[in-house]
């Protein structure tokens, strides 16, 4: 081609590019009519221009160098304290390396993401420092942990993450072609992990298949939680949670993300919807396509046949992908529940009513926007209360008011201060104010008022303030009974909530009546298995079990609740974990320790999966499992669990919460059994203080701590103080739990031992016999506690010189222990040793 022609061609090509693509044909016709020399050339170039796509856009530089040298050239030697061993991959945000460091003798393997140039280092780092604690708190089996961050020697920010040995989700699907059920199982695990992060006030913001790795044992791991936010350059003000278009992956962005609108949990729900689409069809969701349509198009290639997707699964995906955030599933958990319902053949809830747009917008601006701290939670509470009250007033409509309420209830429960490691004082001040405002300002809206009172009561309760919780809950119940009549489902809710608080305060008679009433209403209103019925069964069963030690009454209720929940939900599920725990507790109290330990382990595993390592729900299960292990004589296994439980409680609830008292008491028991009386006594004294303050002086739990302290003081020969404590505990237990409660026997036992030490042998004998009779009546003749009484009685008999009587009693005890625990159990062996001779000893059971 002549150089003049080439120049002309260049000019024409340049001009054509300035035009919108659809006008270019006309441009060619005008400037190069058919027959012109350059026409074909220009048309050809334009046609190829349209097809170039990413052709040559990715520089060969890297590829080329890969050809010439397969060395470590270009790999940084170290980043921060880590040796770099290889490049894992690269993407829009930067390069990911594998690194390792030798820390305290063991190799730590990590993935290090070095952010590409062009992102503002100072800002990214500043945000990282702000967010680090929040992100480090994400401790969940399906979330890759963020460990650290910093700046490389050439000035680029980097993040250090847990190294995951796994393959990207899409690759996993392509290689293993799992069936529908396996795909849904993966998906629900992902949803639960996302929900866990949401509860910890972290949005993912960039959910997509490449951010999910599947480990060799088939478990998903989510990468880059919260990292998107760290890189967001528009994060100027603290309350903007916006997307940055620069690194967004458009195919996986929600409509509000593309608009640059504030992001909420609903944006992650959208991301989950896209993910579900990909899991079901093997393709990306495009332009509102239904999964079944995509599967139909792919025919035999489709991983799941269209016929199975049509209907429910199409609807679930469509609901998660609704353009309006407020019309999607309310939370990742709800989406997971929905998938579970589908899997068990239960009707799905999609198309259910959703909340008004305006409200969701408010929430979007405030829920996650502020720095994820306790202050945010408190600010949110305040903002929402005011907002809800205003909205209800403005709306003046019953329906809307109910919706406001539903929203508020949902949100406040989501930001339970106990879970957010709350600042008790501030949250409490806020609650004190809101209660008065609800009373004063919503008198014309009784149903709203009742719902808000219920929320406030629930929050007091989770702050460990059951006394404060009672009045608003009573108010809520009274209003609802008045407005709705006695048999309304909301009345049952209030009954159950109030029952829970009274149960926690030790007012068991009224609590039981309330639970029974709630169960009756719910059974009449709902047919078949229902989560509300399961809740009432569980709560009532729990009360009978713990407060009444009525195993026969509790067992069918707790077992029914567990069955129902297993039918309703796919484990791991919070309700199933609760019921498994309670049935374990039943077995624990029945002395069926092997069954109890197995169930506690199941519940603990579920709870660790659901909640991560730092969550209130873990504490009690840990604690009880430890007690069962103690009862089985496995003190070495129990002690670390008890220490974990105590540390967790102190961290979650603050050092002076009464729950901390129980953990201390139980650890103290373990120490006592190992003969470390000094530390045990110290712990129990602190525990007693906390319990008296928190539960009250006359609470059964306070009584348990008292008699435990008495046991330790007896070991240290402080007879007077021990006796005083036993007397007080006996008095409380008889009054609060009733004279026939098995705990009464602990106090009697302690008094009997003190009496023997003082040489009051008749009195000791009589007290032991009372305890023994009570235990036989209430626990059955073969319960280990019966053996304990027999051993105590034998000690007194021996002290009185009745060696033969003592022998008979010990043989009887030995028989029980051997059949319960086997001949080689330490307790059996100890008792056998007593048969020969040696000091007599009787201990106290656990606080629980």
């Amino acid at each position, binding site marked *: 081609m002549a150089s003049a022609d080439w120049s002309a061609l260049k000019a024409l090509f340049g001009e054509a590019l300035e035009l919108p693509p659809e006008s270019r044909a006309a441009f060619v016709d005008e400037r190069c009519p058919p027959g012109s020399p350059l026409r074909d050339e220009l048309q050809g170039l334009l046609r190829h*221009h349209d097809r170039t*796509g990413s052709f040559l856009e990715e520089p060969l530089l890297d590829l080329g160098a890969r*050809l010439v040298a397969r060395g470590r050239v270009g790999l940084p030697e170290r980043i921060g304290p880590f040796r770099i061993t290889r490049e894992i991959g690269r993407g829009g945000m930067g390069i990911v390396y594998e690194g390792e460091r030798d820390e305290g003798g063991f190799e730590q393997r990590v993935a290090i993401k070095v952010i590409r140039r062009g992102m503002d280092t100072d800002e990214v780092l500043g945000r990282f420092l702000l967010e680090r604690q929040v992100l480090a708190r994400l401790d969940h089996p399906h979330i890759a942990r963020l460990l650290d961050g910093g700046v490389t020697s050439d000035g680029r920010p980097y993040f250090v993450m847990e190294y995951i040995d796994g393959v990207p989700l899409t690759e996993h699907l392509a290689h293993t072609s799992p069936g529908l059920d396996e795909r849904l199982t993966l998906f629900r695990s992902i949803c639960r992990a996302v929900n866990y992060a949401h509860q910890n006030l972290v949005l993912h913001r960039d959910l997509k298949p490449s951010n999910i790795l599947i480990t060799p044992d088939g478990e998903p791991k989510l990468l880059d939680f919260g990292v998107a936010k760290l890189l967001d350059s528009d994060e100027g003000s603290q309350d903007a949670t916006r997307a940055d278009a620069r690194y967004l992956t458009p195919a996986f962005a929600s409509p509000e993300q593309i608009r640059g609108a504030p992001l909420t949990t609903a944006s992650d729900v959208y991301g989950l919807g896209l993910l579900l689409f990909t899991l079901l069809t093997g393709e990306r969701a495009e332009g509102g396509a239904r999964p079944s349509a995509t599967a139909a198009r792919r025919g035999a290639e489709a991983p799941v046949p269209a016929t199975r997707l049509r209907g429910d699964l199409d609807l679930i995906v469509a609901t998660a992908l609704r353009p309006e955030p407020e019309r999607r599933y309310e939370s990742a958990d709800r989406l997971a529940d929905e998938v579970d319902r589908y899997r068990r053949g239960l009707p799905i809830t999609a198309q259910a009513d959703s909340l008004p747009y305006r409200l969701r917008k408010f929430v979007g601006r405030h829920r996650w926007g502020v720095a994820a701290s306790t202050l945010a939670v408190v600010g949110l509470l305040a903002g929402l209360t005011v907002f809800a009250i205003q909205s209800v007033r403005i709306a003046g409509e019953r329906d809307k008011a109910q919706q406001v309420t539903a929203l508020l209830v949902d949100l406040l429960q989501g930001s339970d201060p106990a879970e957010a490691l709350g600042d008790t004082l501030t949250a409490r001040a806020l609650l004190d104010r809101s209660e008065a405002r609800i009373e004063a300002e919503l008198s014309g809206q009784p149903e709203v008022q009742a719902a808000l009172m219920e929320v406030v009561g629930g929050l007091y309760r989770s702050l460990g303030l059951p006394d404060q919780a009672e009045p608003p809950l009573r108010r809520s119940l009274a209003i609802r009974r008045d407005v709705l009549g006695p048999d309304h489902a909301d009345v049952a809710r209030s009954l159950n909530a109030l029952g829970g608080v009274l149960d926690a305060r030790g007012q068991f008679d009224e609590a039981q009546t309330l639970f029974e009433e709630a169960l009756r209403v719910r059974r009449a209103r709902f047919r078949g298995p229902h989560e509300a019925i399961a809740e009432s069964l569980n709560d009532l069963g729990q009360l009978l079990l713990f407060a009444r030690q009525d195993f026969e009454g509790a067992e069918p209720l707790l077992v029914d609740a567990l069955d129902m929940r297993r039918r309703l939900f796919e484990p791991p599920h919070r309700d199933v974990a609760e019921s498994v725990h309670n049935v374990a507790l039943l077995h624990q109290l029945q002395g069926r320790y092997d069954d109890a330990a197995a169930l506690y382990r199941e519940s603990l595993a579920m709870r660790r999966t659901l909640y991560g390592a730092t969550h209130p729900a873990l504490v009690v299960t840990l604690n009880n499992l430890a007690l069962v292990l103690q009862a089985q004589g496995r003190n070495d296994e129990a002690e670390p669990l008890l220490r974990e439980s105590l540390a967790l409680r102190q961290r979650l609830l603050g050092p002076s919460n009464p729950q901390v008292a129980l953990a201390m008491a139980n650890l103290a028991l373990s120490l006592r059994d190992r003969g470390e009386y000094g530390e045990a006594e110290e712990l129990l004294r602190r525990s007693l203080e906390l319990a008296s303050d928190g539960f009250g002086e006359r609470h059964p739990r306070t009584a348990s701590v008292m008699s435990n302290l008495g046991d330790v003081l007896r070991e240290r020969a402080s007879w007077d103080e021990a006796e005083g404590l036993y007397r007080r505990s006996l008095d409380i237990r008889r009054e609060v739990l009733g004279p026939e409660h098995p705990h009464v026997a602990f106090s009697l036992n302690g008094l009997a031992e003190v009496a023997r030490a003082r040489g009051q042998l008749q009195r000791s004998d009589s007290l032991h016999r009372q305890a023994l009779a009570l235990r036989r009546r209430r626990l059955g003749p073969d319960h280990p506690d019966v053996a304990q009484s027999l051993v105590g009685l034998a000690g007194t008999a021996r002290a009185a010189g009745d060696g033969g009587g003592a022998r008979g009693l010990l043989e009887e005890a030995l028989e029980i222990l051997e059949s319960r625990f086997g001949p080689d159990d330490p307790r059996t062996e100890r008792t056998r040793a007593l048969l020969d001779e040696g000091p007599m000893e009787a201990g106290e059971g656990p606080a629980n």
Partner: protein
Amino acid sequence: MAAPPTEVTQLLQEASGGNQQALDRLLPLVYDELRAIAHGQRRSEPAEFTLNTTALVHEAYLKLVDQTRVTWKNRAHFFAIASRSIRRIVIDHARERLAQKRGAGADHVSIEQLESEPLGDGHPQTLVGLDDALSALTKVDPRQGEIVTYRFFGGLTIEETAEVLDISPATVKREWAMAKAWLHRELTRTG
């Protein structure tokens, strides 16, 4: 045998100023250095690792150039020069590979291979085909040839390319688009 930094820096400054002789002397120095780094590393580390070439060129730059005496413009020029070296290294390697498996397949280029990632060892003919087409383009339009070399082989941005060539970024964009369309057409031609 590496050239002393002062010499390279001097040459670089002169080349940036438009001195063709300086450029001609600089090119082999950079080329040798890149090869030496790459191969030295390969010897010391036999395991298969991927390579970040931006870092490779950066390393060569740090070794060859006295940092206190150069400007950002000089740096852009250095990267431009390195692009040409990279092109030679890559293409030489690809031709070598092709010779080794002579007769193993028709010497035609698949455009899909250029559009997706596997432009590696497995497709030397694709690279050789691209290099041939690029040489042909350079005959018609030397500046477009340079732009492609810098952008595709060297990874320079539009702005850096504009700086090296001393033209406006808008011009680079236009020329780049046309060069890509031209090469695309060449490479999709059958036969």
